[in-house]
């Protein structure tokens, strides 16, 4: 049975990196595990994957052996840019590029902070769930499928929360990015059904009118917009010129 770890198993190493000032973001299974834990689910990983810049990686490779970290594999030309480290018999993969992931600068800017309360409030940067999802969808390995489901569940809850609590463009921003990452033009029917009763702003109506998967739901958007006193001509123009994934 493969070894199974969570982010918390790597706390001492992450603290060392933080003290050293290494720029990194956690990606991979441990990152998915962190988001899973927020949903009350458990996801474990065989190793820790961290994403960094090429210059930080070179610095790390020089610094690691001095701190009891074994460099098992150096990144090789013309292969996946990854260095494999071993720390306290745990495997740590340090990547400077991964399929589907944007550049390090983008990932770091979008990253979230996870505070590990029981470990001296250590703050660990973890890649945004949409970036991890993009990576997992591009890699498309069998073992990633449960991770994809976890991430989609987490993101969809946040999309619903944004419709409930945010104002203006922020209401639909996450949903729009989610569709971009999935490469889909329309929302899945269950998610659309959850968002419809929350639609309140003109931006919600325009977004949903173009992205609900059924004509019935699209007409519901128009009705709801009319009931809320919004201008329905634009919304009807969207509905009348688009196609639908699911025939009514």
């Amino acid at each position, binding site marked *: 049975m493969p070894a199974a770890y969570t*982010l*918390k198993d790597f706390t001492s190493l992450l603290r060392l990196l933080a003290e050293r000032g290494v720029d990194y973001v956690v990606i991979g299974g441990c990152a998915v595990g*962190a988001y899973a*834990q*927020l949903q009350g689910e458990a996801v474990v990983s065989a190793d820790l994957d961290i994403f960094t810049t090429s210059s930080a990686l070179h610095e790390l490779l020089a610094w690691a052996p001095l701190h009891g970290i074994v460099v098992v594999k150096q990144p090789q030309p013309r292969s996946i840019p990854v260095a494999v480290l071993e720390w306290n018999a745990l495997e740590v993969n340090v990547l400077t590029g991964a399929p589907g992931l944007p550049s390090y600068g983008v990932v770091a*800017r979008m*990253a*979230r*902070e*996870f*505070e*590990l*309360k029981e470990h001296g409030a250590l*703050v660990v*940067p973890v890649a945004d769930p949409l970036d991890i999802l993009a990576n997992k969808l591009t890699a498309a390995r069998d073992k990633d499928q449960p991770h994809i489901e976890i991430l989609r569940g987490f993101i969809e809850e946040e999309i619903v929360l944004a419709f409930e609590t945010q104002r203006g463009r922020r209401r*639909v921003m996450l949903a*729009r990015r989610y569709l971009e990452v999935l490469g889909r033009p329309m929302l899945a029917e269950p998610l659309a059904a959850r968002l419809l009763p929350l639609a309140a702003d003109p*931006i919600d109506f*325009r*977004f949903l009118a*173009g992205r609900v998967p059924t004509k019935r739901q699209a007409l519901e958007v128009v009705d709801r917009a009319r009931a809320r006193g919004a201008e329905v001509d*634009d919304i009807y*123009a*969207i509905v*009348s*010129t*688009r196609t639908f994934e699911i025939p009514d």
Partner: protein
Amino acid sequence: MISSDCAKALGCMGPATADHRLHRGQQLVRLNTRPCYAMDMNPDRDTDRRELRSIAQREANQTASRAGLSLPFPNPWDELDTTKLPRDASAQQIHERVRRLSEICRKPPCQRHTL
């Protein structure tokens, strides 16, 4: 409704046709925005005239610059970016500018979760 000749003279699209409505709908779906014909954004429209205007404005700017006068067609972004430096700025000035710019364009707060 305006005639197509009149529309041409006014520089607008004229009466909406079925095609226009279709394109408008598609634009709304694609951009998730309110309708905007955005005629001035069309790269195929008046390209020659716009190019000549740009060249003339640039030349006027260069002439004014050589004469030590203020630019007749300044870059509108310069007014917004109060940290802009002259071309011969020192390293110290550039460093100070980056610091001031990072205060103006502050990184949005990071979302934080607790485990």
